[in-house]
């Protein structure tokens, strides 16, 4: 344990500053670098479309964050988002239902996956990681059974030889394409959800209790907290958030792409984990997840505009991550208790 020198309490402590704001600093520096060298990057248009792409990862990551707060980790979010894409396509294309029906089906689907996870974890007592891993495999396969492993698009020929009667409705497609003022709808959804989760976790009793559960579930239980209910709640919310991500994906692709959501898990977990280090909080939090997602969005967009090949983007992504982490953990005096130690 390192003991800091007794600095004058009113003085400016560079180290503390970096621990708290290092991550944000990295984000800002990258942003300024891209903005000053690439005129394209500073266009409002570019910024919004960057946020729009980030929104899916971010929203899904917010759900993951909730499960991390209660001491778990939802590995099934990518698969859930993928399921949502297939579900929405099936509802509209195969069963020729309206957009709102698809929307409800998708959200219900997400909640159901969450409930299933909760059942495995809370009732069957399977450890979180294992339970959600099993769920992941199961729904990744299951979603393809009714469609025999094919993407669902209008014109699809059904088992009975007829042609699928429906198509993605215009209204549904608007989820990704609409604007609220100058702000794309997915971005608006992303920021609203981030705000709600932030308030929920930091300002409400439920959020407080969830953090308690994540750190010491037994102490929470003995303080009269219904631990299992909160854990179930976190997984259901995570499922719903993933399905909102899937909804946006589905509306963006405009068809029941079978591969959608596959690469989402790692990114969503990454942003939530990275988010733990923002502001030196050393615990999962909504603001951190948001910033983590935005940072990764900036890196990918900036480097693409600069013409870096995809593998160079991976390298930079890794290095930026590392820098942020060093700021938050290496320099911090505080032991991080909150970060999942696995």
């Amino acid at each position, binding site marked *: 344990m390192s003991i800091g020198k007794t600095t004058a309490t009113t003085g400016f402590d560079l180290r503390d500053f970096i621990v708290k704001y290092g991550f944000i600093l990295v984000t800002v520096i990258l942003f300024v670098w891209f903005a000053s060298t690439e005129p394209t990057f500073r266009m409002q248009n570019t910024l919004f479309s960057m946020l729009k792409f980030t929104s899916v990862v971010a929203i899904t990551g917010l759900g993951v964050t909730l499960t991390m707060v209660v001491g778990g980790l939802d590995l099934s979010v990518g698969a859930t988002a993928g399921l949502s894409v297939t579900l929405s396509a099936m509802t509209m294309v195969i069963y020729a239902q309206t957009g709102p029906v698809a929307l409800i089906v998708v959200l219900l689907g997400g909640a159901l996956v969450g409930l299933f996870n909760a059942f495995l974890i809370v009732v069957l007592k399977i450890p979180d990681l294992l339970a959600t891993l099993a769920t992941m495999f199961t729904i990744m396969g299951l979603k393809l059974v009714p469609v025999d492993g*094919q993407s669902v698009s209008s014109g699809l020929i059904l088992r009975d030889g007829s042609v699928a009667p429906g198509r993605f409705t215009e209204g549904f497609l608007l989820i990704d394409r609409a604007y609220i003022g100058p702000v794309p709808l997915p971005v608006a959804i992303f920021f609203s959800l981030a705000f709600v989760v932030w308030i929920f976790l930091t300002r409400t009793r439920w959020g407080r209790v969830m953090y308690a559960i994540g750190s010491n579930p037994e102490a929470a239980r003995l303080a009269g907290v219904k631990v299992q209910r909160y854990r179930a709640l976190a997984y259901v919310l995570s499922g719903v958030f993933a399905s909102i991500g899937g909804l946006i994906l589905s509306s963006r692709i405009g068809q029941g*792409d079978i591969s959608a959501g596959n690469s989402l898990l790692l990114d969503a977990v990454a942003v939530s984990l990275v988010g733990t280090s923002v502001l030196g909080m050393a615990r999962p939090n909504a603001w951190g997840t948001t910033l983590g997602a935005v940072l990764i969005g900036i890196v990918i*967009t900036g480097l693409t505009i600069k013409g870096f090949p995809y593998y160079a983007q991976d390298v930079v992504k890794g290095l930026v991550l590392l820098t942020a982490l060093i700021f938050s953990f290496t320099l911090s005096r505080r032991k991080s208790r909150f970060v999942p130690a696995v």
Partner: protein
Amino acid sequence: SQGTSDTATGADEGTVAEATGTKPAPFDAGPVKIAIVQNSGAGDYFQQWTNGANKQAEAIGFEVQVYDAQADNAKQATDMETAIGSGVAGIIVDHGQADTMCPLINKALDAGIPVVVYDVATAECAPQAVTTQQSDASLAQAVLDQMALDLGKDAKVGYVNVLGIAPLDRRHVVWEAIVKANNWSQSFFVGKFTNSVATDNAQLVDAALKKSPDVVGIFAPYDELTKGAVSGIESNNLQASIKAYGIDISNADIEIMTKEGSPWVATAGTDPNAIGAAVVRNMALEIAGQLGVKSVDFPGVLITAQFLKDNAVKNMVDLRAKLPELNLASVSGADWIPAVQF
């Protein structure tokens, strides 16, 4: 143990022509076992390919064992070994890496098992195997000729591709030649291969277009990449000024191409069902000792969005009806083989 994919949705049942000749050995003595060792069975293209192969195999009287490596080259090698050891009369190798598969193909040939290869460059390293291919060069040439016609010389173009994957590399060679011949300037080259290609590339193309909104055409020689490119163009609202060119065709692709104002104006394709069936016929002929050649090409056909719209093509069934060149029923036939027609 018949694959279950013969009940696939959208699985085109096909029509079986009557066989007139008498079956040669060993087909006269009941079912013949063969194995199909696939690099990947996932995705629309491969689902249809496998469907075609299964249908044809059933008609001929093959008992088929399908090994699906799920895009894992190492697993495909293991599958090949299992297949060799399982006492089959012939093996079809569908995609994969030449370096990986050649030694094993030779091992099979040494063990007296005939091998038909689809889309793996084994002509040099396994000269005794029958190679069949969807001619990547002809596919790329067909669509790029159209692109050159549309854009003229000295155009600014974008490119979406991932090198290191054999068929994409072969298409790349044609692209480089065309770019040079037409004196095009390539404004960007992006692309990444993940497990959700369409969504992940959309973000890259979107960013690239922010920097180079003045390109007039984008070539993305694989339909998942093309989907990503189309999303990128649309999210920049540039569909009026940028045309997209792809390769491959499926129900989902047809939907996108025929959509009002779609930037995707042309693609080149084959019918994966028909190819799967033709490859199986080659296998039958080779086992019967009647094939006589070591290499069979399946040429690509140019398909323009205009053609699809003019003929009200909604899906692959319509397309086959309007574009009989796609159907390979006359390729590699024999009077004792009941050819499947889609």
